[in-house]
């Protein structure tokens, strides 16, 4: 065997050590930037927002320059981009946090037992309750989910398992995408027109709201379920076919259970998306001060419509109704949050087990 290794060449010994900023450098930079900006701002009489913007700019420039001097160019770029990501995240969080803060702050005063268990029937000049609106919202959204989940899931099963690349599937995908963009008020008008034809002119009832919301919900359920079903490995389908299991049973017992966690998340997101819809419900469900638990007869209140009504027609005592509107908004947010938590729990329960 001949020696194929090249003769060893002398190479300059290269240190892998470089000077590094201390671990808490970003924190120091932040404190200094905020302090400098606040000092400048207070002297010149700025508000909070300009001070924040200048502090962010100081932070970006300061940390990058510091790193450039002590460390090297690559580290400085790394610090700059990392800081940009953090600044963007903060900017994105500001509206969310301030919205939550505002709703909690304004709404918490309205919350009490009466608020949650009474309706607004015959309430004049004193705080009432939003029980009628909570029940309306829950019932209408439930109706929408009952209509859209089976249709959406079956459509997704068709798209992934049967249609695949066919012309029909391509058309369905295109139309579903178009449906995603339907303005919610159009969905409301559609439901109103539909039931005017079927039941009679001017019909307003809860199930109409369910139909209107399901028009908004179906495309979301279809697309999210489709993505989840696509993620199920083809291996599992083949394993099932190879055991002599028919296709429909493979889909029902292997494919859908494997994708269940994702499907549930998708459905919850779709519910969260439609539960706050105001315009369609205003048209097709109307508004009422009384509790109505019958989806198929009479006008039905809902939280978004209640909030809208309390602001636009506050009547003789605007302060009280205004606070009730904030309280209703808080309850609506809490319902959405509870749904999200429920979806996470269900997702955990249904997700494939790894055995640990």
């Amino acid at each position, binding site marked *: 065997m001949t020696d194929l290794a090249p003769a060893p060449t002398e190479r300059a010994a290269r240190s892998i050590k470089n000077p590094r900023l201390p671990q808490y450098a970003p924190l120091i930079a932040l404190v200094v930037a905020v302090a400098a900006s606040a000092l400048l701002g207070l002297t010149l009489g700025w508000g909070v927002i300009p001070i924040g913007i200048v502090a962010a700019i100081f932070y970006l420039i300061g940390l990058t320059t510091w790193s450039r001097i002590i460390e090297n160019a690559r580290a400085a770029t790394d610090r700059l981009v990392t800081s940009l990501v953090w600044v963007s995240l903060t900017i994105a969080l500001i509206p969310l946090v301030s919205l939550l803060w505002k709703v909690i702050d304004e709404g918490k005063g309205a919350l009490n037992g009466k608020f949650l268990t009474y309706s607004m029937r015959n309430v004049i000049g004193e705080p009432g309750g939003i029980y009628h609106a909570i029940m309306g919202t829950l019932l209408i959204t439930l109706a929408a989910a009952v209509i859209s989940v089976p249709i959406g899931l079956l459509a997704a099963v068709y798209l992934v398992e049967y249609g*695949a*690349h066919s012309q029909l599937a391509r058309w369905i995908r295109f139309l579903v995408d178009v449906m995603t963009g339907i303005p919610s008020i159009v969905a409301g008008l559609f439901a109103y027109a539909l039931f005017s034809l079927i039941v009679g002119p001017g019909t307003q009832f809860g199930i109409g709201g369910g139909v209107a919301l399901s028009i908004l919900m179906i495309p979301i359920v279809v697309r999210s379920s489709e993505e989840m079903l696509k993620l199920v*490995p083809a*291996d*599992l*389908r*083949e*394993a*099932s*076919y*190879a*055991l*002599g*299991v*028919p296709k429909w*049973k*493979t889909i029902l*017992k*292997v494919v859908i*259970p*494997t994708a*269940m966690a994702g499907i549930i998340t998708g459905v919850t997101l779709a519910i969260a998306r439609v539960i706050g819809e105001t315009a369609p419900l205003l048209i097709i469900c109307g508004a009422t001060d009384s509790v109505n638990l019958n989806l198929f007869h009479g006008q039905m209140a809902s939280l978004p419509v209640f909030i809208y009504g309390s602001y636009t027609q506050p009547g003789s005592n605007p302060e009280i109704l205004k606070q009730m509107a904030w309280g209703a908004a808080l309850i609506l947010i809490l319902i959405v949050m509870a749904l999200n938590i429920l979806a996470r729990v269900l997702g955990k329960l*249904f997700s*494939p*087990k*790894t*055995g*640990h």
Partner: protein
Amino acid sequence: MAKSIDVSDLNIYYGDFLAVEGVNMTITARSVTALIGPSGCGKSTFLRTLNRMHEVIPGARVEGKVLVDGQSLYDSAVDPVEVRRMVGMVFQRPNPFPTMSIYENVLAGLRLNNKKLSKSDADAVVEKALRGANLWNEVKDRLTKPGMGLSGGQQQRLCIARAIAVEPQILLMDEPCSALDPISTSAIEDLIHELKEQYTIVIVTHNMQQAARVSEDTAFFNLAGAGKPGRLVEMNPTKKIFSVPDEEATEAYISGRFG
């Protein structure tokens, strides 16, 4: 209950593309037949026509005949689902059902086919299949744990247990050891030796030593060039193929002088 397979003038197409051409082959019952050949020569494609699994791929079709104990698999009256209950398959990568426990995985073939089983019958089937797959001792205390929690080699043996639980007559194996370490491979090869007492086994492998170790007969597939269909070059008893093959191409491939 094992059955022999007769293949005559089989052409396999993907759409307009002829993937495998003119295969004639007889596979004896209760023996192991190995299919070897370079990648892309159509071994797996051919294997999948033996239980009509290739139909899962859109556009795939065959011409010619596949007879299992005299019954044509491609007769228009034949239900592919029934064929697959008779001809089981183990895949290259272990694919236990992730939503099911070890116990449920073994029973999947029966349960999903609507067999009503009493608890004691089900227990018996699970134990028999897992013992058959040499996995019983390793998992008997954790049957309710998810199948995905096992090691790769154990998962593959679980898939074999799942395949033999439905008591097929023929077992197809598509490179069952290619994702496994030598110890798991050896466990599966021992298993193949035991299984051939009862089943007709057809195995695709890239490992020449494996073909020599486990099979009675070996079929060598090759293709004339890129874009040309694969074809069966030679099929002979394994001893003959690995010592004095009829064809020069076979010898070139086996001795590593190929291509």
